[in-house]
């Protein structure tokens, strides 16, 4: 299943609804990265509310994607990590998910907006070509 990537202005939103196979996970990763580069996204929210199980592979994919997105100059939040998922991730290793996490999508978007607002590239009055 292809994961839809929604665009809200210069923020991208991707919601993972079900367990992904390895191929699907890699597909999602490259889709997201290319989209970020294409629109020069300022922020990316990855919502995993619907995931009850996150294995170490999936955790790594999420973490890698977050690193890639940061290298491309966008802020990242992971939204909706379930309590049970959080516990297993901690069991498996502390830094399995290095990106910032929020409880739900609402808070995630808010945090993204705050972080974007403090960035240099949108604080300019001189940005007339937007």
């Amino acid at each position: 299943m292809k994961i839809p990537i929604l665009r809200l202005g210069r923020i991208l939103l991707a919601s993972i609804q079900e367990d992904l196979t390895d191929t699907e996970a890699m597909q999602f990763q490259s889709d997201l990265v290319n989209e970020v580069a294409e629109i020069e996204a300022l922020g990316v929210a990855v919502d995993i509310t619907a995931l009850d199980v996150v294995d170490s592979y999936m955790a790594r994919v999420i973490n890698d994607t977050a690193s890639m997105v940061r290298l491309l100059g966008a802020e990242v939040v992971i939204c909706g990590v379930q309590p049970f998922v959080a516990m297993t991730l901690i069991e498996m290793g502390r830094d399995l998910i290095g990106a910032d996490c929020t409880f739900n999508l609402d808070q995630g978007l808010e945090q993204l907006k705050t972080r974007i607002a403090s960035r240099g590239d949108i604080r300019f009055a001189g940005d007339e070509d937007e």
Partner: protein
Amino acid sequence: MTPSLSQVLKHRQDELLEHWLRDLSQTSSDGSFSSAHPELIEPLRELFYVLMTQLDQAASREISLATDQPSRLEREQQTALEPPLKQLVAEQARLQRSLSDTLGFLLYLKHLLFKALFAAADQAVEERSILWLDHCFEQIARQTFDLALAQRDRYISEQSISIMELSTPVLRLWHQILLLPLVGVIDTGRARQITDHLLEAIAKYEARVTVIDLTGVPIIDTSVAQHIMKTIDAARLLGSRVVLTGISPEGAQTLTKLGIRFGDVISRASLRAGIAEALLITGKRIAAMEASPR
């Protein structure tokens, strides 16, 4: 009596030279060389005289390939011939003529000398003279080839140095902001030079922010990433923040998959966003003018 090599050649020296130069001024009929540029006449003439002197000296010493010390003679001959040959090769390279033309000129001279030698000899020419003349031109051809190669190598290394210097400028973007646009493949040598240049510039301009633009780097692999990391760490030690810009999606994926973490280095999609970030850090901003001049 068999006329000696030296006698024959000396006798007809001027005639031979004129004949040689005249024939060189047009493309040879068998295609072994194309016409010599007028500017070559002087170097060729000089080469001819030096060669004649060498032939004369060698002949007067009654050389024999078997008994004498050919290696010592060869060395002397090489030393004497080097300046005119060098000049010839340099001129040819400057005129963008091929090395085979140069060799063609020299071998054509050999042809003329042999013809003169045989024409003058009523009977068989001394065998060792022929052998020696042949050997002598072999040496010259080899020497010319070496000189041309050496010159080309020198050009290439000079050019690669200048390319290196051209491609790693450190630009002063604004007060306390430096821009390091990286273009091309980054190897260890260049990486070190880039770091050196950058650190010097940071110290000189007291830069608080350095923007490193990677748009022009085609492939980012482990070694490139490590070099960039080192540059960033070094810049940090001098108290300059680093903003990376222009990493391609492929580059970002490679870096992450290789397990390279740039930690808290600020990374921005475009140079424009990176500059904005740098300005923010230094507390500056670009603003529209209140009254437009036009």
